């Protein structure tokens, strides 16, 4: 490959190196790098002068070494305040309000000095799946348009339900009474019954979607669907080591919260645009079903 460390160009910016001039950045330096529409924290592993410019082999902090790659200086930036702001902004645009993918869970994003600092190195961010798909595009010099985000619009009355849920639990110190009837599992069953009645069959693909939702619900309930006020209740309802599935004791209130997090979870699947569109339709139909049965499925007041 031929290192060209002896080809030190005078045009290279002075990066304040003491020893070898490797262009704008130096080995071991932590810099910000564009990859797809977002900016990531990286560390420069190697620097080489190739074809009249400096190239840097970067490692994305928190990601597996498989993602390490050669990039030009055009994709890199010093971690100045201004650039860090830029990074924050891009993440923000992808997260939070809209149900977009490529979200980095809040706990890991900044230097959350506390708990996760030590773990951050080993945790890939949520955008992983997205990164795979956009690989061929990663040579872009500037951030491209964010990938199509899976937007799952919630019907208005269900949004109101979420806000009331938020008020009950976080503002009024109330909790839903467990176990819930109907449970999440019951609701899925009612939905398939409804579809069978209406269409005569339930498509394979829909079965997978519903099973997928259930799987997500069971795994993600304790991880991201609970308000802090509900943790104690969860701990006693699902004791450590028991095999009780959350989908058998929690109900519509918590299922609805899953829909807020759903696109974030789906990022891991790296699903193609068209498949996402299909999925969107199926989810929208399910949400309408929830809406039609709102008074039966949701509590109007909590204990």
């Amino acid at each position: 490959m031929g290192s060209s460390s002896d080809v030190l160009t005078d045009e290279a910016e002075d990066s304040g190196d003491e020893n070898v001039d490797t262009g704008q950045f130096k080995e071991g330096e932590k810099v910000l790098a564009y990859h797809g529409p977002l900016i990531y924290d990286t560390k420069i592993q190697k620097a080489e002068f190739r074809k009249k410019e400096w190239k840097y082999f970067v490692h994305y902090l928190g990601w597996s070494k498989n993602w390490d790659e050669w990039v030009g200086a055009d994709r890199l930036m010093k971690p100045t305040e201004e650039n860090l702001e830029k990074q924050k902004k891009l993440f923000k645009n992808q997260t939070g309000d809209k149900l977009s993918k490529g979200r980095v869970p809040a706990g890991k994003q900044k230097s959350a000095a506390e708990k996760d600092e030590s773990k951050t190195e080993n945790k890939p961010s949520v955008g992983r799946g997205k990164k795979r798909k956009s690989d061929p595009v990663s040579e872009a010099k500037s951030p491209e348009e964010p990938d199509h985000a899976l937007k799952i619009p919630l019907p208005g009355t269900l949004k109101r339900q979420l806000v009331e849920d938020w008020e009950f639990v976080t503002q009024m110190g109330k909790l839903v009474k467990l176990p819930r009837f109907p449970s999440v599992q019951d609701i899925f069953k009612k939905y398939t019954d409804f579809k069978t009645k209406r269409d005569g069959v339930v498509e394979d693909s829909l079965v997978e979607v519903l099973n997928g939702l259930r799987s997500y619900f069971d795994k993600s309930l304790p991880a991201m669907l609970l308000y802090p006020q509900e943790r104690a209740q969860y701990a006693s309802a699902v004791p450590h080591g028991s095999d009780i599935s959350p989908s058998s004791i929690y109900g519509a209130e918590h299922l609805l919260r899953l829909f807020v997090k759903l696109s974030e979870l789906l990022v891991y699947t790296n699903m193609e645009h068209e498949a996402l569109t299909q999925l969107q339709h199926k989810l929208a139909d399910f949400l309408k079903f929830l809406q039609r049965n709102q008074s039966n499925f949701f509590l109007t007041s909590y204990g």
Partner: protein
Amino acid sequence: MGDHVQQKPRDGTTSSHRSTPAATPPSSASSPLKKGTQQVELELRLLEAFAIYRPSLLAGMHRHFILFGLMHHLERRLNQRFSPDEVLQLLDRFFNLDLLEPDDEELELVNHKEDFSLPQSILEEIKRKKISS
């Protein structure tokens, strides 16, 4: 986990109860050469699909959405419907599904406890409606 034909998922979810036409081989009227080509195409599309949908994810919580994605991908490109079981059978040709284990990523996601928070936009939208009503 993981037998092949009658795959019973670990998470206790139900498998589909509606069968779709199996991936039928070409009729005997077509030449042996053509048969080979179709087979090759199928396998190519599968390998293409695996580049998008990581098979290792089948061992974890994303299993069903991965299957959903694979089913969709194959149907789109081969103009043929595959049931989840059929997709798994096809996968079995290339991977030892028994050896798949949940990803590290999933373990970290599950262990990392994050409090739920309602997106500002929803809160604001509903509050605005309340004020104006």
